[in-house]
């Protein structure tokens, strides 16, 4: 089993290394990784649905110069470098900013767009006039973007988001004070949306140069750079820039920085063991425990309502179960965190996650509890009635203790799923285990090490829960003939 896994990984790596100029030339195709959700650089035209944008047009022009066909592979930004390393495409065209860390790890081309860092705030917020004013403020940043580091070094608290649009949403909702990004992106946003609720409050002083990224030693750089130089000389880059940004951001060839030594993988894991454990103790475990307890209470109520002879009551319970089980948990999280503010209900990340997970557990566990209660013979209800018990007492003293024996194995499944589902809270700014791993992996590109460590943490929690389940089951079975 393990051997097969190792072989697969080796195979995948092999394919990644085998890419490069020979492969591009022989296949006649340049495979380009891009987000497809990052207007106006890489997005789908709302009228035609076609993939378009600044980076898309540049990549097409480059492919033309190389005499090959451009094939785009759409990949979320947070996994775009992992996908590049695993050989899913040859280059990334997605406003990749040149940094020393990236240069150490990848082949970066000459820049095809140049901008500068700017700080965006709400239009009516005058408290930020320079980079220094960010100290103590909250900014929303994509964790893998270099702007997160700029904000962090300026003393800002960084909330992790999926992209620029989400950052602007959080800014407008008052959940964060600012977001730092490239002037190119900000001007493009302001131009396309006519949003007047936000403004550029200050510049960070950093120049940002955007380039293609290819795998290390891909052999693609000479050809890519030649193409970019030619496209700059013949005015193509300037034309593309005008088309999408209403400004010329094509820039000139920069000086390339020197590569910083990468920290060793072992040290990186050791450095992050405690931060990840802390995230587990302060977020993942409390999220799981609180949501499970509240969820069980909801589930019991829903299960009893579902069994009620009153049609309205049982109908409401049935609908609840149907909606919870019929919609993705991620969508439920987004509805509570991102959609409710539109109705004026703004809930902080942690409580929002608790609400979503509790409701979710409530829906699933309700059916488990209902079937467990149904499995108790009618004679038990009758015996309790004849000794004078009323409904709540019967439930509490006679039915639920017996039903719990039936319900514990499936409820343990629900609990163990919940442990892992809490990783979804990372998408609504809860800094739990997975988010901590993402943040550690982003600047270092050590995805395997960091996500592997996170996986180990989750597994250990679930292992502990499985042992506990065994103990509970043995205890509940003491009155059953063996």
């Amino acid at each position, binding site marked *: 089993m393990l051997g097969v896994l190792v072989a697969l990984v080796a195979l995948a790596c092999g394919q990644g290394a085998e890419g490069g100029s020979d492969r591009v030339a022989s296949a006649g195709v340049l495979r380009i990784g891009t987000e497809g959700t990052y207007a106006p650089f890489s997005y789908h035209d709302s009228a035609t649905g076609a993939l378009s944008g600044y980076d898309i047009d540049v990549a097409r022009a480059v492919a033309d110069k190389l005499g090959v066909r451009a094939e785009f592979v759409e990949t979320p930004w947070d996994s775009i470098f992992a996908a590049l390393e695993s050989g899913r495409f040859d280059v990334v065209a997605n406003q990749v900013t040149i940094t020393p860390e990236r240069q150490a790890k990848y082949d970066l081309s000459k820049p095809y767009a140049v901008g500068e860092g700017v700080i965006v705030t709400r239009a009516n917020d005058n408290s930020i006039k320079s980079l220094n004013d960010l100290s103590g403020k909250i900014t929303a940043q994509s964790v893998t973007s270099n702007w997160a580091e700029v904000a962090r070094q300026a003393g800002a608290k960084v909330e992790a988001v999926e992209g620029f649009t989400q950052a602007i949403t959080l800014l407008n909702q008052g959940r964060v004070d600012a977001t730092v990004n490239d002037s190119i992106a900000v001007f493009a946003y302001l131009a396309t949306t006519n949003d007047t609720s936000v403004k550029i409050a200050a510049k960070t002083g950093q120049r940002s140069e955007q380039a293609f990224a290819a795998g290390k030693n891909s052999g693609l750089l000479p050809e890519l750079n030649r193409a970019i130089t030619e496209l700059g000389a013949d005015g193509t880059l300037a034309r593309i820039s005008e088309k999408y940004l209403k400004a010329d951001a094509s820039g000139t060839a920069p000086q390339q920085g020197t590569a910083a030594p990468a920290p060793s993988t072992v040290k990186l894991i050791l450095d992050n063991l405690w931060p990840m454990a802390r995230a587990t103790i302060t977020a993942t475990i409390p999220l799981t425990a609180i949501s499970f307890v509240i969820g069980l209470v909801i589930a019991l109520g829903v299960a009893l309502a579902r069994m009620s002879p009153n049609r309205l009551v049982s109908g409401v319970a049935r609908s609840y179960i149907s909606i919870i089980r019929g919609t993705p948990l991620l969508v439920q999280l987004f509805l509570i965190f991102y959609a409710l503010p539109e109705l004026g209900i703004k809930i902080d990340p942690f409580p929002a996650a608790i609400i979503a997970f509790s409701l979710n557990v409530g829906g699933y566990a309700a059916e488990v509890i209902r079937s467990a209660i149904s499995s108790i013979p009618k004679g038990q209800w009758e015996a309790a009635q004849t*000794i*004078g018990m009323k409904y709540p007492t019967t439930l509490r003293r006679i039915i639920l203790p*017996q039903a719990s024996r039936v319900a514990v194995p499936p409820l343990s499944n629900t609990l163990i799923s919940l442990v892992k589902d809490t990783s979804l809270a990372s998408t609504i700014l809860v800094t739990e285990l997975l988010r901590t791993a993402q943040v550690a992996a982003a600047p270092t590109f050590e995805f395997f090490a960091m996500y592997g460590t996170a996986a180990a943490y989750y597994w250990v929690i679930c292992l502990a829960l499985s042992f506990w389940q065994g103990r509970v089951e043995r205890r509940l079975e003491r*009155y059953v003939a063996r």
Partner: protein
Amino acid sequence: MSTPTLVTVADVTKSFGTNAVLKGVSFEVPTGSVTTIIGPSGSGKTTVLRSLNALERPDTGVITIGEVRVDFSTDIPEAEFYRFRGQSGMVFQAHNLFPHKTVLQNIIEGPVIVQRRAADEARADAIDLLRSVGLDGKQDQYPYQLSGGQQQRVGIARALALKPKLMLFDEPTSALDPELVGEVLAVIKDLATQGWTMVIVTHEIRFAQQVADQVLFTDGGVVLESGPPSSVIGAPKQERTQQFLRRILDPL
């Protein structure tokens, strides 16, 4: 010799959907007497018994047990309903012991949780009751560790622990292996000699004959024939009663 009446059942009816199970049942049970109900399956005898405990709620009719009178054609206040139910203790065919509780916990559950009696006192009573049904020393066992006959005797002790005025038995030996029937019937006979008022649904005709002061023969949702065992079982007047007894006593 005339004894006071404990139970009066007057014109009780009950339907399940369109199926009329009881079509006007009336009888009386004198204090301290034993009444057995016999009859073919589907005749309504179990429904009559369950009505006495309101496990089955009659559609119409009046049942009086001791000082509690309930008219089922009217709305019954909840407190009155539970007072009515508290008059009797029920022993089931399938014992229905609580499997997650020990013998002792099964017996004291009603007295302590429902009647709010002191746990010490209820426990002492339970030990006495266990001795009287021949289960000395079994108090800490779980039901699954007992034989069928022992389980049924715990069921009897559980009902007795509530100190009801009336004891109800729903075919208490039907689910038992034949060799275990005797020990349960012996306990019931013992209760009869102690002066308990009891209503027993049974297929044990010989037992009914020995223990009963009054036998009710039900058929088609009514009491077709009633009287002392010497007449209803010994010399039945109704042809249906004769047929039934022939089939039961001489099945071949």
